[in-house]
């Protein structure tokens, strides 16, 4: 029994590091909204602004990403992005020069977590033209938008990861789960048998 133990320890260590420790250590935020596929249809001309309501179910939203387009990267006008709470109070604000916008590119804005449940994103610009800086949105003017939520402490992340991995395991093909685990166990039993055989038998 002792001989097989060191092998099992190595296997469990590899498993623990990759499935439990690494995700808890490294994944410090979870992806929330992931809305893609819109078109560059909202011009960021002076005087125009666009708003979008979002939920913050975990009370820890810590980034938003918007898809913007600066055709041929010609327009260096300022773009303003503000995040307001349900009472209209400004929570976070950002300004970006057009030169930092690709043709097109996702712009990720990181900030310290916001607790308010309902938020409004407001985007406006200072472009002199109606065809040189755009925000991506669908036909109903819903922005192309990605959000993420912070997982603040290591303990939180371990807990979140355990829930996530358990759900993932349940969602996988049950036959494959059973066959996979059975193969690993059988191979370990075979290895144990080999280790317990006396040398002169081989």
């Amino acid at each position, binding site marked *: 029994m002792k001989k097989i133990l060191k*092998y099992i320890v*190595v*296997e469990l260590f*590899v*498993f623990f590091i*990759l*499935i439990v420790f*690494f*995700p808890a250590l*490294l*994944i410090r*935020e*979870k*992806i929330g909204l*992931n809305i*893609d*596929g819109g078109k560059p249809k909202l011009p960021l001309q002076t005087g125009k602004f666009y708003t979008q309501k979002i939920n913050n179910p975990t009370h820890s939203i810590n980034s938003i990403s918007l898809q913007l387009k600066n055709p041929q990267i010609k327009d260096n006008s300022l773009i303003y992005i503000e995040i307001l709470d349900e009472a209209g109070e400004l929570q976070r604000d950002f300004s970006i020069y057009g030169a930092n916008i690709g043709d097109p590119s996702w712009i990720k804005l990181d900030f310290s977590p916001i607790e308010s449940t309902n938020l409004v994103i407001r985007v406006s610009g200072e472009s002199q033209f109606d065809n040189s800086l755009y925000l991506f949105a669908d036909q109903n003017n819903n922005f192309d938008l990605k959000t*993420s939520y912070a997982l603040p402490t290591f303990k939180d992340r371990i807990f979140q*990861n355990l829930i*996530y*991995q358990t759900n*993932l395991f349940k*969602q*996988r*093909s049950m036959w*494959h789960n059973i066959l*996979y685990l059975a*193969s*690993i166990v059988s*191979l*370990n039993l*075979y*290895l144990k048998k*080999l*280790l317990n*055989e006396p*040398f002169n*038998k*081989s």
Partner: protein
Amino acid sequence: MKKRIKELFVFALILRLILAPLFYHPDIKSQNFHFQFLSLGKINIYQYIDENKQFLPYRDTFNYLPLTYLSFGAGQILLRPLLPSNFFTWLNDWGPSQNNYPDLLYFMLILKLPYIIFDLGIGYLLYKLYDKKVLIIWLFNPLSFYLIYILANFDIVPVFFSLLSFYLLKKSRNSLAFIFLGIATALKFYPLLFFPFFLFYHPNNIQKIIRNIFAFLLPLIITIIPFVFTPFFVQAFSGSGLTQKITEFKILNIPIYPVIYMIILAIYYFSKNKNIEKSFLWLFLGFIVLVNYHPQWLLWFLPFIIFPILKTKIKTIIFVLIVFLSLLYIVLINDQFLFWGHLIPIDINYLYISSPYQIVTQRFHQSPELIQQQLKLMTAFLSLIFIYPFREKNT
């Protein structure tokens, strides 16, 4: 097989079964996307893709050889009963949800099962060629894990056939050796680099040399001839990655790697004891310094060079340093799937962690390309040390 060796193989198999499903690289998906067309009876994949490009969810051309398509396509048909039911949905999903399949872990495991067989096969050949130490290094070194199961390209298969060819060459079974080297080349062109070294391994007369060349060309001729006259096939290979990259680095408009290659070949040809491993080690060192290689290309040389790098402690240490620098070079490539992205079968959120490229550019405001050049310089310096004749333990 000795009991201790059997134990090593069983433990190596368990570790591979644990690790193989946990890592993903999009190449394995794009290759298998093309391989699926064999089960639909499409033999000329080059023509099929060209004619149906606009209807396909993934529109890249198939840039590999016909034997690759036919053998891996057949392999996929054989593996089909083992694959989860939503495998083909995933294979044809190139939209935003393409990485969001809980069964991705089992897709990876089943698709990599053939790699495990060829990988352990290489281990067995190395044991037969050298000793237990070389076998242990092959089975448990992190570099082969990375190249075979994380990057998960099919290069392990031609690597197996080129090593099998070398094994047969050592046993003086020349015709068979060259047929297997031909099969390796019919799967991926790179063993062509090894061919002249194999050809001059034994002192042969012209008649035997011609016979060996014919044996080498046979698998290529059989598998390529039916396709070679279709324009789609030629188009798919125009500007092949390897030929382009080998000739990229030039001084006075002369491509340096081919020159180095010819010098190494000449030294080998005129040497009394034909040391293939040493020559391949030099080819490898020249390759990582002078060629902007794809990471999986490092695997081509690996089984051949383990033996010479184990000869002295200092060579082993320097080689580990060279590998470390090469891996640093790789992680600084601007591709999320060359770092955290590999781990998405465990958690899709890995895809959104900043890659080393992003960290270097955004947090440290440095140029990763410049760092890569410096890493190449350091690798070149370390490689020079290999030319110094250290006293060897096993000679």
